[in-house]
């Protein structure tokens, strides 16, 4: 595959830095990185610009400086991690150079000079292939699109001058609990409304622990029932997963949810409603109450 010349990566998580720089290496010759987190997190880039740990500042204050760097260096391609910050960073870069951000690709290809991105649209009803216009292409990329391979130490690390902005940082409250990386998980247990109550979620966690996987959920579980954090829901507007095995428990199988999980190699379903659409979209299924099935299945996995 032909490559573009220079790729700029903007990322703020360790996995984002590793995945996007790996993707950048596959797509381009030279890699520059703008990153936040620990100074030592930089990998794969010839030059890495360090923003700081962002514990007492907002990355939004660095956007003007990031845009200036893009305008100065004119990379062929900018890959931005699709965090909340990444959305606004990529948008501001694109607005400044007069292009659109290609967001949330499930796949990125180079065809001659064109950067082609394929993304899901209309709640999973379709995939849209699009290409960026202009000299600099900007893509906002989520977890799991590129695989973080072997990393090598970054070349030069430069402290990045944050510059100024018209937004004032007041405080930051760190989130409790561990971060889940559903996009990279090999096995995901999906929690649906069929669990009936939050207390029953222990059944899903036990199964996930036994199998060495993570727990995800459907949108209503996160947004309406609020049993699980918003970051855990799989679907069009949530996380797109591609594990080896997805175990859908008490999940009806709505299009929006299935679009986020149908890249799974194998889908298992447990639901007491025989007519649930999930049974049309799974490889193996059991029609029964998950409260009966899950403990037995977990026990079998534990051996």
């Amino acid at each position, binding site marked *: 595959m032909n490559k573009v010349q220079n790729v700029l990566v903007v990322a703020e998580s360790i996995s984002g830095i590793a995945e996007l720089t790996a993707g950048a290496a596959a797509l381009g010759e030279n890699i520059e990185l703008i990153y936040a987190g620990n100074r030592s997190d930089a990998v794969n880039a010839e030059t890495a610009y360090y923003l700081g740990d962002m514990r007492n500042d907002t990355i939004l204050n660095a956007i003007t400086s990031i845009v200036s760097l893009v305008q100065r260096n004119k990379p062929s391609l900018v890959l931005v991690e699709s965090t*909340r910050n990444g959305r606004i960073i990529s948008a501001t870069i*694109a607005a400044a150079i007069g292009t*659109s951000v290609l967001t949330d690709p499930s796949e990125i290809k180079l065809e001659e000079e064109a950067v082609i991105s394929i993304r899901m649209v209309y*709640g999973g009803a379709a995939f849209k292939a699009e290409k960026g216009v202009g000299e600099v292409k900007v893509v906002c990329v989520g977890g799991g699109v590129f695989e973080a391979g072997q990393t090598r130490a970054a070349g030069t690390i430069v402290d990045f001058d944050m510059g100024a902005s018209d937004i004032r940082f007041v405080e930051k409250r760190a989130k409790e609990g561990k971060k889940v990386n559903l996009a990279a998980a090999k096995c995901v247990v999906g929690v649906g409304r069929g669990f009936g109550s939050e207390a029953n979620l222990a059944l899903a966690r036990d199964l996930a622990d036994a199998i060495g996987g993570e727990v995800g959920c459907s949108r209503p579980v996160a947004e309406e029932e609020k049993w699980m954090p918003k970051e855990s829901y799989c679907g069009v507007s949530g996380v797109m997963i591609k594990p080896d095995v997805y175990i859908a428990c008490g999940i009806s199988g709505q299009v*929006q949810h299935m679009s986020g999980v149908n890249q799974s190699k194998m889908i298992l379903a447990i639901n007491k409603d025989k007519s649930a659409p999930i049974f049309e979209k799974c490889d193996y299924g059991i029609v029964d109450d998950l409260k009966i099935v899950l403990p037995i299945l977990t026990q079998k996995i534990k051996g």
Partner: protein
Amino acid sequence: MKIVACYKCVPEEEEIKVKSDRTLDFLKAQWKIGLYDLNAVEAGMKLMEEVGGEVAVMTAADDIVENSKMRKAILSRGPAQMYGIKDDAMKTADSYATAQVLKAGIEKIGGIDLVLCGEGSGDIYAQQVGPVLGALLGWPTVNAVSKITPADRKLLVERSIEDGTEVLEVDLPAVVCVTSDINIPRIPTMKEILGAGKKPSTIWNLADVGAKIVNGSDTISILAPEQTDRLRIIFEGGSEENIEALYSHLRKMRRQ
């Protein structure tokens, strides 16, 4: 506070049909207001109730701009008036083009303190129009906002980002994109739905606002996904035997 909340009319995705060549058929699909846009409207109403002022709504699209059902649907949520920028080419406008047109509309109204956008559109969900609009206007712009507290000529906002919550102070005028959990949008009463029909709406064309539609991306294709073939082997009842069968398939997969 003079507030504009932006919205987009989107097709009901459940009613989009797939043709044999995998292209989409929207003919039978009903239109609706983008789900996340309702949070922006509600956030605007709450702010207005707190500090006074007026909430208007704005959209840029093709003929659907003038659709009376859509107009009532958005105005019944409380806004005093609606602005629509209508052009056929909006059908294929991307985030950059849409933000350009909305910017022209916001500037045409003039004197706006706050533009509110939802998390993302209900159809494409690129989450770009709000941030691009803010950048084009040159106003302070924040996304992922889950709480807004008004103060004198500024806002205190909370951003829900991946690793925690940021509290920031933003001067007005500003563009604020809210999360879908910032509020629960009100359900309009029958009286509000009937009253919505009497509220003023202003329809402009591109020349009226002095905008052009310039896309920053080219669409190559929009096609339904090829279906992944699933085995669909279903066991009825959670008997020991059935669970063992399910487990054996799971075990095989994990060994690969």
